[in-house]
C-alpha cells in the first residue's frame, strides 16, 4: 500500500473541497470495499477524506410534492436502514435488498451512499495481475472469454462486461429514488436511475458523478406501489454471496388489471437495469404468469450471452414472474 494521507473534516463543504481539489483523493465511508481495494492494490489514492462522521446519519420523514418522502442520510448504516420501521412497512423492497446483501458485520459498517458506490466484484477487476479496462483503462478485458458466470447480459460493451454488485441500488431503481449530491458549486438531485452508467468505452467510470461530488442523502417517495414491493436474490449460496440475478418489483392491480408495475434487475448489467419494456407491456394488461414471462422476453430480446452466462436469461425472467406473482397474491 502506498503512503496515505488522512483527513476527517467536520463539515460537508470542507470534505467536498478536499476531494475536489485533489485528483488523487477519495472519500472513505464504512470502508468495507475501499479498505479491501487498498490492500489489493486496485486503487491507490494519496489522500483519504473520511466522511463517516459527518452529520449525515439521520432518517427523516419529510413532506414531498408527490407524497411523504423518506430522506435517508448518506451515512445511515445498511443494518439501521433495513431495520427502520418505515422502510420495513412502506419500502419492503429496500429492506429485503439490504438484508440480502453481505453479512451482519458488514451491514453494521457499510453506509447507504457507500453501498451505491461500491465497485464490481468481477474477479479480474480485483486481481491486479490481469488485464481490466475498469481498473486499468486500455489494458483489455479478461472477463470476455474468461470466467463469465457473473458477466452482464444487457448493455455490456467490448471494453467491459461486468455487473453492478449492489442489491440496494436495484431496489432504489425500482422505486425511483433520488440521490442528493453535493459538489463544489452546490447541491443537485440525481434520479438513482441516472446515477450508474453503462460501460461503453469508459468502464473506469461507474457513475455519472464528477470527481469530488459527494452523495449526502437518498430520497424515497412513499406510495401504494412502494408498499407492494419486494426483492428476490438468486445466488450460488443461500447467504453471504453476490447475486447471479436479482429482481426488485412493485405491483398495483385493479381486479386482474395491472394499473402500475415496477421491475428492476440486478446481476445483468453494469448498472441496475430498469425493465421499462417489460413494464410497458404489462401496464394495462391482465395479470398472469404468462404475461410476465412474455413481457420479460421482450425486455431480454437484446440480451447477449456466452455459454457460461446464458442461464441468466431464463433465470431473471422466471424470478421476475415469481416476484410479481407473490405481489399479485398479496394485492388480491
Amino acid at each position: 500500500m502506498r503512503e496515505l494521507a488522512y483527513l476527517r473534516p467536520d463539515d460537508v463543504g470542507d470534505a467536498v473541497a478536499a476531494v475536489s481539489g485533489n485528483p488523487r483523493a477519495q472519500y472513505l465511508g464504512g470502508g468495507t470495499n475501499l479498505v479491501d481495494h487498498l490492500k489489493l492494490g486496485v486503487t491507490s489514492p494519496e489522500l483519504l477524506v473520511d466522511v463517516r462522521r459527518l452529520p449525515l446519519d439521520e432518517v427523516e420523514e419529510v413532506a414531498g410534492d408527490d407524497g411523504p418522502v423518506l430522506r435517508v442520510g448518506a451515512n445511515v448504516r445498511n443494518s439501521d436502514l433495513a431495520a427502520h420501521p418505515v422502510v420495513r412497512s412502506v419500502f419492503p423492497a429496500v429492506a429485503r435488498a439490504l438484508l440480502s446483501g453481505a453479512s451482519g458485520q458488514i451491514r453494521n459498517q457499510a453506509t447507504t451512499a457507500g453501498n451505491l458506490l461500491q465497485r464490481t466484484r468481477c474477479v479480474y477487476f480485483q486481481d491486479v495481475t490481469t488485464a481490466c479496462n475498469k481498473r486499468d483503462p486500455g489494458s483489455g478485458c479478461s472477463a470476455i472469454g474468461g470466467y463469465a458466470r457473473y458477466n452482464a447480459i444487457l448493455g455490456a460493451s467490448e471494453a467491459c462486461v461486468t455487473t453492478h454488485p449492489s442489491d440496494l441500488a436495484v431496489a432504489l431503481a425500482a422505486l425511483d429514488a433520488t440521490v442528493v449530491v453535493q459538489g463544489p458549486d452546490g447541491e443537485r438531485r440525481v434520479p438513482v436511475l441516472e446515477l450508474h452508467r453503462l460501460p461503453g468505452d469508459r468502464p473506469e467510470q461507474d457513475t455519472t458523478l464528477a470527481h469530488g461530488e459527494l452523495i449526502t442523502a437518498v430520497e424515497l417517495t412513499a406510495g401504494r406501489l412502494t408498499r407492494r414491493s419486494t426483492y428476490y436474490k438468486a445466488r450460488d449460496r443461500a447467504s453471504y454471496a453476490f447475486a447471479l440475478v436479482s429482481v426488485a418489483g412493485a405491483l398495483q392491480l385493479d381486479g386482474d388489471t395491472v394499473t402500475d408495475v415496477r421491475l428492476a434487475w440486478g446481476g445483468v448489467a453494469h448498472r441496475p437495469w430498469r425493465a421499462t419494456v417489460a413494464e410497458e407491456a404489462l401496464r394495462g394488461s391482465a395479470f398472469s404468469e404468462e404475461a410476465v414471462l412474455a413481457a420479460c422476453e421482450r425486455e431480454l430480446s437484446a440480451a447477449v450471452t456466452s455459454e457460461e452466462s446464458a442461464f441468466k436469461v431464463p433465470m431473471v425472467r422466471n424470478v421476475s414472474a415469481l416476484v410479481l406473482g407473490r405481489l399479485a397474491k398479496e394485492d388480491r
Partner: protein
Amino acid sequence: MQAEITLTVDGTEHRTTVDTRTTVLDLLRERLGVTSPKKGCDHGQCGSCTVLLDGRRHLTCLALAVAHDGAEVVTAAGLADAADDELHPVQQAFLDHDGLQCGYCTPGQVCSAVGMLDEAKQGHPSHVSDDLEAEPELDDDEIRERMSGNLCRCGAYAGILAAVREAARS
C-alpha cells in the same frame, strides 16, 4: 502518514501512534498484543476478526485504525467478567455444545453471536424473516442466516448452531 489515536480495548485505554494504513486488526494484534481477534482472510470474507466496536459486531480487517479514533472495542477475551471468573453465556454455550474444533474462528463466532443476539433483541429482521415487521424468532434458519458472515473451516456448524440456539433462549 502517522496519526495519534485512542482506542479502548476490553476496558483498557490505549493512546498510540499508527500509520494511517494500519487496520484495527493489525493494531490490536501486532501493536497492542491483543490476539483474540484472528486474521483469517483479511478481506472481509470469513468473520474471524469480528469484535464488538462501539457496541456492534464489526470486522476489524476492513477498518482503518485512524478512522476509529476514540472507539471502544470489546474482543472475545473481554466478554467474560474477570472479577467473578465466569465465562460469558455465549462462550459457555460454545463449550457446552462443542461449538468449535480447532478454535481459530471461535473468538469471531462468539463476538458475532453476541452482537447478533442484541440485534434480534432490538427486533431487527433478517433475510429469512417472512414478516419484516414481526418480532424475530430465532429458529435455526434465522440463526444460520444471521451467523452467515462467520465461516468455520472445521465445519463445526452443528455445534455452533446448538450453542447459539441455547444462548438465544437463556
